């Protein structure tokens, strides 16, 4: 049985499959319980701060920004951020273009830069509506995109992962990279919010 908000629910098919497979792998000596725990811990402790440091560097170093847009994976490696087994594409918000990321097929997400995806990112309503009526979805996140700005939705359907490079807000002149990183939230890098100086 599975404890959910204090109420016991029967396990779903996939929960049962996950537990069975994990227990078998441990029993056969492929993995240890300690390795499973450490991996879960590592995934959970990762947040969006890595992505924020990439954005802050791009805001303060135009040459880094150019390299990031040309090859996201390589540029992250410069910062000591390893993005294994997949290719990172950074998409640039400009006064003329606003970018949003979704994975309509499952929940592909740049975990190595943003940590675990939020529940809403994996939900069917976000996945289906972000490609169909992105402006209405953004409005529900409190983000109104003017009509003259192109909304560009990126569906992560295969081997690429995406991060939105938001525009640096006014009022942040002279800020340190660290202070800038502090205003770059996860949602800004998915594209459902924009950074604010205040």
């Amino acid at each position, binding site marked *: 049985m599975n404890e959910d908000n204090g109420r016991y629910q029967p396990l779903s098919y996939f929960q049962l499959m996950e537990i069975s497979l994990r227990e078998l792998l441990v029993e056969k000596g492929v993995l240890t319980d300690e390795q499973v725990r450490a991996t879960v811990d590592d995934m959970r402790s990762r947040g969006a701060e890595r992505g924020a440091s990439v954005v802050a560097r791009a805001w303060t170093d135009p040459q880094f920004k150019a390299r990031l847009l040309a090859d996201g994976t390589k540029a992250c490696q410069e910062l000591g951020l390893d993005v294994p087994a997949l290719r990172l*594409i950074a998409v640039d918000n400009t006064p003329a273009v606003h970018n949003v990321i979704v994975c*309509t097929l499952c929940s592909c997400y740049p975990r190595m830069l943003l940590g675990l995806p939020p529940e809403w990112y994996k939900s069917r309503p976000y996945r289906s509506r972000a490609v169909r009526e992105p402006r209405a979805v953004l409005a529900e996140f409190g983000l109104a995109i003017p009509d003259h700005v*192109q909304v560009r*939705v990126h569906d*992560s359907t295969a081997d690429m992962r995406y991060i939105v490079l938001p525009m640096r807000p006014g009022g942040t002149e002279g800020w340190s990279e660290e202070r800038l990183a502090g205003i770059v939230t996860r949602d800004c890098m998915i594209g459902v919010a924009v950074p604010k100086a205040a």
Partner: protein
Amino acid sequence: MKQTAQPSFRPGDRVAVRKAWPLGHIRTPHYIRGQVGSIERVCGSFPVPEELAQQRNGLPAQPLYRVRFLQRDVWPDYQGGANDALEVEIFQHWLDPA
């Protein structure tokens, strides 16, 4: 057998997504099948997911493209700017010249 198929398309080329409904693990979303867009960039070549899902090696690797579509082409009743766009990763074997 060659391990990587040659790219047939270049940025700017007009392409049509195949209108096919095979069973299996397909990374081409249903909503985009049959639509016409243009190549935004070539992403490199990757083993074919339909084959990987069957525990085969997925070779020769197929070129993967980012294809840009106009929202108003994909959804006739789209509410929003005329230039609003949708970019989707699509493998070469799912694309025909348009």
